[in-house]
């Protein structure tokens, strides 16, 4: 971990909230991306991201400073997302009524200003299809796949975040990848 981050964490441990704000700025979009792709809804993902940071602040004493801060933070975000999915499964199946990317506005998805309107629509459709496929993955494959392909993390980092052996991470990624392929080919009709 870099030195500036170590200094920030020392300050946070003493209750310095401005130091914490710097860490939030640094990681907020990564945390949001994990939550968003795990739960498929921008509003829920924003709430979960906020909760992840509040938890990190309140439990900063439990953070082991020998490890990367992001590993610990992403673990909190992943676990909160999984808890959320389980809770939702127990309440009602929202999936039946709410489209997978509900709440994801066009603007939020499109940082590219030079893009043509037609391209935007195609991209939005593709993104919805892909998000829908991620959503079909069982949680344990989904988190491994999201950390790998959305956050571009190494197998070792994923194994530390999920607290499972690297071999298990690989198996989950292989199975998740195979499931994605089958479902996309069955439904996307080769749109890839």
């Amino acid at each position, binding site marked *: 971990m870099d030195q500036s981050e170590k200094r920030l964490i020392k300050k946070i441990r003493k209750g310095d909230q401005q130091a914490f704000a710097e860490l939030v700025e640094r990681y907020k*979009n990564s945390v949001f991306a994990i939550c968003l792709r795990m739960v498929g809804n*921008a509003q829920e993902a924003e709430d979960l991201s906020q909760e992840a940071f*509040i938890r990190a602040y*309140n439990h900063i004493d439990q953070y082991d400073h020998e490890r990367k801060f992001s590993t610990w933070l992403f673990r909190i975000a992943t676990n909160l997302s999984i808890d959320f999915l389980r809770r939702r499964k127990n309440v009602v199946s929202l999936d039946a009524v709410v489209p997978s990317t509900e709440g994801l506005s066009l603007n939020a*998805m499109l940082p590219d200003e030079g893009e043509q309107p037609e391209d935007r629509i195609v991209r939005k459709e593709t993104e919805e299809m892909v998000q829908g496929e991620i959503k079909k993955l069982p949680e344990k494959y989904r988190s491994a796949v999201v950390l790998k392909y*959305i956050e571009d993390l190494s197998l070792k980092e994923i194994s530390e975040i999920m607290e499972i052996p690297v071999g298990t991470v690989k198996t989950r990624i*292989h199975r998740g990848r195979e499931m994605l392929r089958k479902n996309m080919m069955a439904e996307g009709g080769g749109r*890839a």
Partner: protein
Amino acid sequence: MSCASKKYVSLMNKVLDQEATEQEKQVLFEHLATCDECRVHFNELNDSTELLRRLTHPQLPAAFTKSVLDHLPPDKRNVIRKWGSRHPVLTTVAICALPMSLVVIGARRQTRDRSGYALVKVSGDQT
């Protein structure tokens, strides 16, 4: 049409995980050149993950960080300092009251200690 050997699937995984040796890559790509089924399978795996990689990474609004800070428990150092400067009289009273309250709390604790001791004694007698 069906490829008899499953060994190519695990080779595909190795290559996609970027853990294959040059030799393993060569074995796979030589096979893909001659086996339609495996070639299609490999391309589909590649395309699927490529779609995930290309998903946009939306940015959270700037107000997000402030909203997180608003939800944190109050910063103790700031709270005491701010409160003290806003209520100088109350602060003085509070500081003077502190020794008094310690006496009261101390007295109460003693009472509780006594009853706690009594309980222990009773259970001790029973065994």
